[in-house]
């Protein structure tokens, strides 16, 4: 074998195994039953045993039907009930059935979240159902499902600029967004009984510079697959009170970004804490204050 030619025999078998894992020539005619085979064939019972799961509209999963870039597939989960002390969504599981590791993450909310909405970006390795399962504080499970065709069906290629993420690894941004008119109207409509305008939940975004690599990419120098290196835990609190917490996998895209809500009713400090698979810990705090009815955040 020419020495310039890559893929020595020693990794060939591993590569073939991976090829089988991500093999996904266009399955365009599959029925829902076929699409859901991974879920019904073991994924469901592995996480939820024989618990009842309602397929209703407690939550709505939004995802593109066809994702043009399988490495950054934007998905969002909208909760159609407000977070109150009496009844709230406490956990959302997110799955991409046909990813090498189907569980994208577990996301935890509290009444202080205001709304159990979530926005993030995923790696999708194959044409696959994406599903969110929400658990309410009384232990009920509710599911929303979408089918996503990742571009080309198969693969979420590695980062286009690995050095950029690496150079600033651990850098974070915390933003609060004034919602645009459309989102605001729907928010009021959905939550008007429980939130006065001034205490309307605020849309926040946490961004983390991290390669979030899957470990499924071969290192050309060592000819081995580099160990996975990704953000495992995220915790955001306001004045010491948890508002958002997540346990995540490499299915979250490079430079993880999470959009969620919280309902600060006074000035205070937001703390974001992140731990990755290397045991690195990143922590940043931000001052959040209501400014003329609007919320602003600064480091």
């Amino acid at each position: 074998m020419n020495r310039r030619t890559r893929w020595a025999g020693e990794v060939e078998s591993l590569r073939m195994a991976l090829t089988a894992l991500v093999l996904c020539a266009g399955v365009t005619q599959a029925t829902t039953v076929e699409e859901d085979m991974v879920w019904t064939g073991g994924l469901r019972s592995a996480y939820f045993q024989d618990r009842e799961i309602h397929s209703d509209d407690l939550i709505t999963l939004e995802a593109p039907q066809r994702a043009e870039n399988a490495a950054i597939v934007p998905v969002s989960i909208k909760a159609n009930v407000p977070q109150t002390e009496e009844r709230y969504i406490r956990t959302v599981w997110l799955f991409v059935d046909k990813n090498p590791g189907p569980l994208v993450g577990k996301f935890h909310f509290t009444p202080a979240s205001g709304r159990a909405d979530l926005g993030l970006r995923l790696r999708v390795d194959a044409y696959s159902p994406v599903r969110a399962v929400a658990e309410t504080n009384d232990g009920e499970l509710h599911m929303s499902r979408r089918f996503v065709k990742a571009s080309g069906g198969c693969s979420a290629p590695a980062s286009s600029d690995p050095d950029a993420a690496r150079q600033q690894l651990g850098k974070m941004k915390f933003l609060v967004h004034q919602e645009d008119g459309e989102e605001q109207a729907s928010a009021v409509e959905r939550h008007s009984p429980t939130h006065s305008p001034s205490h309307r939940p605020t849309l926040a975004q946490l961004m983390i510079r991290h390669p979030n690599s899957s470990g499924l990419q071969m290192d050309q120098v060592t000819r081995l697959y580099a160990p996975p290196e990704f953000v495992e835990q995220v915790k955001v609190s306001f004045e010491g009170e948890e508002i958002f917490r997540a346990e995540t996998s490499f299915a979250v895209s490079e430079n993880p970004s999470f959009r969620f809500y919280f309902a600060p009713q006074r000035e205070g400090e937001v703390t974001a804490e992140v731990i990755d698979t290397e045991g690195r810990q990143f922590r940043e705090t931000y001052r959040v204050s209501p400014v003329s009815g609007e919320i602003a955040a600064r480091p």
Partner: protein
Amino acid sequence: MTADNADNRWLLSLFIHAAMISSATMWPGGAGAAAASTVQEIAEGVFVRQGRTAVLFEADNVANLAFVIGSRCVAVIDTGGSFAEGRALDRAIGELTDLPVCFVINTHVHPDHTFGNKAFDRENVQFTGHEKLPRAMALRGDTWLQRATEYSEAPVDGSHIVLPERTVDSEVQLDLGHRMLIVKAHATAHTDNDLSVLDVRTGTLFPGDLVFLEHLPVLDGSINGWLDELQQLMREKYERVVPGHGPAHAAWPAAARPTVDYLHDLREKTRAWIARGGELGKAQEAIEAARPEQWRLVEQYHQRNVGAAFAELEWED
């Protein structure tokens, strides 16, 4: 093998489906289609095999390929999207000169420019690429080999990935015998491993995919970096350029204008979207391409470009 019957059935149906696709999808312009007549001499000793605008992998001759003939030997600039396409280029060279190929320069990692490398993988051919090309080939090659295999009749295996022996971190000169090529490494732009090549004798620049015409530009590196690199190149004088996609040659700096205008507009719109706190998915739906009528493949690549631009620009301070 732990797969149960259900999984086996699923896999089997995939294989059948894949076989149907590959028998139905022949590569137009593949083996045998090429001859010297498909190559045009755009300047003295400078030849271009023009690609045709199509989606990656749906054809293997998407990119413009070129070669330059010196008094000692020949340099190849990009090798096409398949072994067959590389072979066709090699044959076209053989019909025009008895001189050997001594250099293969890959302007960047994308498979429409590199998957013909195997056709030149022999003694005394030195492969040249950006210092970041080996990593990009190693990390992303596997994905593309699988995609190419889906479309190809012959298996596309690891031997199609030929790494550069010589890597460039700033600039090198390659001597073809009384003829110098200047190979320049660029900062992250179209990809993180872009090279441009200048044939000094004729003033012909090969900017690779830093310059697109007809085929919508594809962003796979840095939108800021790409605009910066183009701005610098546009200050230079060249007799002509060979864009990575589009016509075989074009005038400079006019040839850069469409790419610059598209990227500039994309950057402004995306920045505005981010400033309003908009999310990536909605931006992909809402942001439209500037002057879509002057491009092809807008449907296939524009949304993807918005996502790539968004993911970069949201980290701007």
